[in-house]
């Protein structure tokens, strides 16, 4: 058994989200709306990673996601990997695609934006500049960084 498997125990069925930047693990739980999930969730933060220095990992037992939901993760963790586990085996590996639009989950950083004063569902276009993703508000047209908006 390798060292890594000792740190985070194996999953029989479910989804493993790996290579999440350590500081975004809580945000990832939020984005995937895992608060009310009843099955076992294992969370690792500040694990050693060859790629990122320190990474986070989330293992959710008996839970499988739609691509649309997983892709929200790309906003904070574009290099995250998703492994779908069935019967202790990885049956599918997914990479994330940045969604073109972000609806409802982000907040505009512009204090004068109408979405911060009226009951309106927010809507952003994602702008990708090299590795950096930012959000352009559909209403006030201002650009918010991911850190500010999520």
């Amino acid at each position, binding site marked *: 058994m390798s060292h890594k498997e000792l740190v985070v125990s194996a999953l029989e069925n479910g989804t493993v989200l790996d290579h999440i930047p350590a500081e975004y693990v809580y945000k990832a739980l939020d984005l995937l709306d895992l608060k009310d999930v009843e099955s076992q969730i294992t969370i690792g933060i500040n694990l050693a990673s060859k790629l990122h220095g320190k990474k986070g990992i989330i293992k959710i037992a008996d839970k499988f996601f739609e691509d649309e939901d997983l892709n929200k993760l790309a906003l904070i963790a574009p290099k995250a990997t998703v492994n779908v586990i069935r019967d202790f085996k990885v049956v599918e590996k997914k990479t994330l695609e940045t969604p073109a639009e972000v609806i409802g989950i982000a907040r505009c950083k512009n204090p004068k934006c*109408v979405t911060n004063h*009226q009951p309106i569902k927010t809507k952003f276009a994602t702008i990708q500049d090299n590795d950096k993703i930012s959000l352009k*508000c559909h*209403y006030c*047209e201002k650009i918010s960084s991911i850190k500010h908006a999520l």
Partner: protein
Amino acid sequence: MAKSLISIRDFTKEEILHVLETAREFEQNREQKFLEGKVIASLFFEPSTRTRLSFETAINRLGAKVIGFSDATNTSQSKGETLKDTIKMVDNYVDMIVMRHPLEGSSRYASEVARVPVVNAGDGANQHPSQTLLDLYSILQTQGTLEGLTINMVGDLKYGRTTHSLLQAMSHFNPKFVFTAPEELKMPREYKDFLDKSGIEYIETDSLDAYLNDCDILYMTRVQQERFTDPMEYERVKDVYTLNAAMLENVRDNMKILHPLPRVTEIDQDVDETKYAYYFKQAENGLYVRMAIISYLLGYRPLK
């Protein structure tokens, strides 16, 4: 959803040129009452004299009736009604909504809630597309073309929405830009990125004299106190540029001075009498351009 005008980028180059062409028609003949029987709402949630009078005159000259308000304090918004409900209610009564609102993005939202066309007459510091179209019309009328001109924008280029929208609209026409602003009020990065991506040249300076003699359009702006969050910053920059007649000795013969008005100290009164001053005529042009916008959006002057 009807065709609305919220941001200048909602109009293609073809549509921009069509509206300017239509404005010319109204300048030649402003007595055309083909909107008789129509009702247009003029909803000014934030006070504005110039823009509101210009829109309401345009509506009247086209023969339509105006309903609305010029101040939100006496409306049900002050009782806590949502913007959505106010728009929904007015939408049932009218053929078009012209609105100004202090919140940015409010007009876009209204256009998604309303069934009739919405014209944005200013949403906070965001967009004011009818101003942009009248600026373009003024440039076209004074220069005979929109192509290949050098435009020197002066003053508050950071908060001034008119310069941002004009820059976006002019990008269709191979312009060159000079941005004359103090360090605190420089053109924001995102607009310079946009120009870089579009391959459009620009020069930045903090000296009004530096490129005064090398432009076709001198676009002066007021430093707007209401846009500043830091009063100290406002005090430092409010009187940074003042243009007077003596400075105009060596400017290009075709050069015209534009200003969205109101002006404060940035253009001396002695400039008004020179042949370069165009800002009062520019304000008049707003009437023809707004008549054109309304006629186009209501389908009376469709694209050919």
